[in-house]
């Protein structure tokens, strides 16, 4: 049957599936409020919509690609928190692994306006550069601007983007002190020991993946999982022998969804010092 499909038809399907690069993604600067209030924090977000077949990248793009480059210009007196990256998908290519987003992604930044707002509006802008890839990669650039009226301390005025912000907030990595991690440097790599909280279903760790914040250090594709008495350990090799391990292991432990969580995306941030393997040292230094 497969052989009888005319080539022309296949081509039509291919073209229908992948939007041309010029219109494959668009970005906008949005806020979760209609009006900003003196000293009251709100959220700004860069929303990137992607056509089917295209993806853009996480803070660590993985083996290829580029993280979004967002250059923010905030009005004087505003302070802003770090850019928050939603939990990415792991995208496996032939011999490469990348981390990113399809369809839609919202990068959120919490902004606190000054205690005294001058003028009637505040103008926020972002010079955005991001890379989108399908089979090929195309750089995208945009200068995004958002003017919001200055309030005088009235009650909140949620914007129509509220639901988008809320659903993205549910997809942010969630620091959970019930999880405990330890990273130990080993010959040629490191081991991440994971102690899950009681009640974490036994099989989820078997299907977990660790993705590092820093690219080019760990060969995460060759992670070896091992069940331990109290949890799991993930052994990862360095990407190449002379790669230098950082002082801290930072990244995300991606967990498969649990039944009650219809959101489907779960990730626990990992940020622990990488300690030397004391047992090995003791052996080496011993009598």
């Amino acid at each position, binding site marked *: 049957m497969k052989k009888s499909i005319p080539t022309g038809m296949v081509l039509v399907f291919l073209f229908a599936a992948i939007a041309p690069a010029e219109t494959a993604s668009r970005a906008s600067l949005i806020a979760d409020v209609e009006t900003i209030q003196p000293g009251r924090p709100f959220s700004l977000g860069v929303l990137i919509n992607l056509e089917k077949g295209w993806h853009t990248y996480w803070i660590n793009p993985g083996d*290829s690609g580029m993280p979004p480059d967002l250059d923010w210009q905030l009005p004087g007196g505003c302070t802003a928190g770090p850019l928050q990256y939603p939990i990415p998908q792991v995208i496996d290519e032939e011999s490469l692994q990348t981390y990113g987003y399809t369809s839609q992604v919202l990068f959120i930044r919490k902004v606190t306006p000054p205690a005294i707002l001058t003028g009637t509006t505040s103008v926020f802008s972002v010079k955005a550069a991001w890379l989108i890839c399908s089979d*090929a990669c195309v*750089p995208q650039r945009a200068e995004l601007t958002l003017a919001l009226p200055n309030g005088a301390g009235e009650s909140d005025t949620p914007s129509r983007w509220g639901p988008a912000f809320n659903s993205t907030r549910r997809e942010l990595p969630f620091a959970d002190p019930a999880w405990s991690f330890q990273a130990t440097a080993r010959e040629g790599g490191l081991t991440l020991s994971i102690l899950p909280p009681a009640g974490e279903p036994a099989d989820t760790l078997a299907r977990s993946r660790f993705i590092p914040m820093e690219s080019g250090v760990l060969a995460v594709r060759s992670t070896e999982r091992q069940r331990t008495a109290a949890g799991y350990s993930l052994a990862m090799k360095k990407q190449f022998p*002379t790669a230098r391990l950082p002082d801290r292991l930072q990244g995300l432990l991606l967990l498969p969804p649990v039944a009650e969580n219809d959101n489907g995306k779960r990730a626990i941030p990992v940020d622990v010092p990488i300690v030397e393997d004391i047992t090995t040292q003791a052996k080496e230094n011993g009598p």
Partner: protein
Amino acid sequence: MNKLMLTGLMMLAGLSAIGAEPAVGNAAPDFVLPDINGATIRLADFKGKTIVLEWTNYECPFVKKHYDGGNMQELQKTYTGKGVTWLTISSSADGKQGFFDAETWKKMAAAKKAASTAILLDRDGAVGHLYGAKTTPHMFVIDDKGILVYKGAIDDKASVEAATLKDAKHYVTLALDAVLAGKAVETPETAPYGCSVKY
């Protein structure tokens, strides 16, 4: 692909363990590829020279960053002027991004004023896989004894933005300058960045 080249590649396959990419400090595996002018180029013919292998895809934005402002051509000119053999390799498969026929290649290379020793067409990806070329650009430096002394990124700025070229730590020039001065390469390996090779 002619019979001679096929034999050469089969010999290579026999010599190198399957899936094992050459490690820094080991001999760089030999290969035979046609260049865009139809000549047959064998790596071993450049024995005694310092060699650069540059994986490319003219349509990849990371490659464009290095070519559009003339930076890559300048490097090719500078180092071939110092006796280095610079081989630019395309492993794009037929129908994939960066694949062109030899005539188109000749026109593009001329328009770009490419100054490498030769541009090689690795259409079946055999040499790309042999070296474990993952991205464009992905760079390899081989010393005059045929030992691989650097592999990885061209520089430390994994970006498509031309503005990042100025302050980048340029791993390949550092490796070449060290090798030409008879010194050890300080950073012999880095993780490459760019577009995936379009095998």
